[in-house]
């Protein structure tokens, strides 16, 4: 929403493509809904460890989306996806940024991965609140 609010001239379809791109990675939470036991460590979650959480997926998706739709939609989808992966990569788990060349998880280990500590960590909350206000004002005064 920050990207959409900051860039003039984008139509609402681009916002939709940004949002779909930014959220489609979360579909890899599906396996966790059918498992019998959760892993001992939250960083061993299958979520965020599939191809949907790689930059490669969004780079490759760009091509069919460009031919099926158009350049703004394909680019918005890719930027939305990249934003998700790169912000996710800041946590202690990191993400497979170099997939398919490497299945290693990379990241600066700035945030916690665990949902419970993430939502109640003051620094993270301050950052997320700042992002919220940026998105809010950019959308209001667009």
């Amino acid at each position, binding site marked *: 929403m920050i990207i959409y609010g900051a860039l003039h001239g984008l139509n*609402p379809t681009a916002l939709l493509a940004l949002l779909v791109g930014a959220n489609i990675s979360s579909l890899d939470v599906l396996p966790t809904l059918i498992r019998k036991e959760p892993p001992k460590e*939250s960083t061993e979650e299958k979520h965020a460890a599939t191809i949907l959480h790689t930059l490669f997926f969004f780079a490759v998706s760009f091509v069919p989306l460009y031919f099926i739709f158009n350049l703004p939609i394909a680019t918005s989808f890719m930027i939305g996806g990249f934003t998700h992966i790169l912000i996710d990569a800041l946590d202690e788990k990191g993400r497979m940024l170099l997939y398919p060349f490497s299945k290693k998880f990379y990241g600066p280990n700035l945030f916690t991965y665990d949902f419970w500590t993430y*939502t109640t960590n003051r620094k993270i909350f301050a950052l997320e609140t700042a992002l919220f206000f940026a*998105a809010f004002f950019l959308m209001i005064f667009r």
Partner: protein
Amino acid sequence: MAVGVDLRAWARKNAHYIAAWLIMGGILFVLVLKELGIYSLVLFAPFFPYLAITLARIHQEMKKRYSPT
């Protein structure tokens, strides 16, 4: 590190955080609807049951994982 969570105690202790997250999410959702139009709900609606199932599953797992000392 895995964290054992007593959901009720956690929610009581962090009610202000939960309220703030929900308010921020709600406001952004309204702004998206305002921008895309109310009919975009047709696109989002199929994901609401999925969200509810996910939350219920997280709740179940957390209850199982938590063992009061």
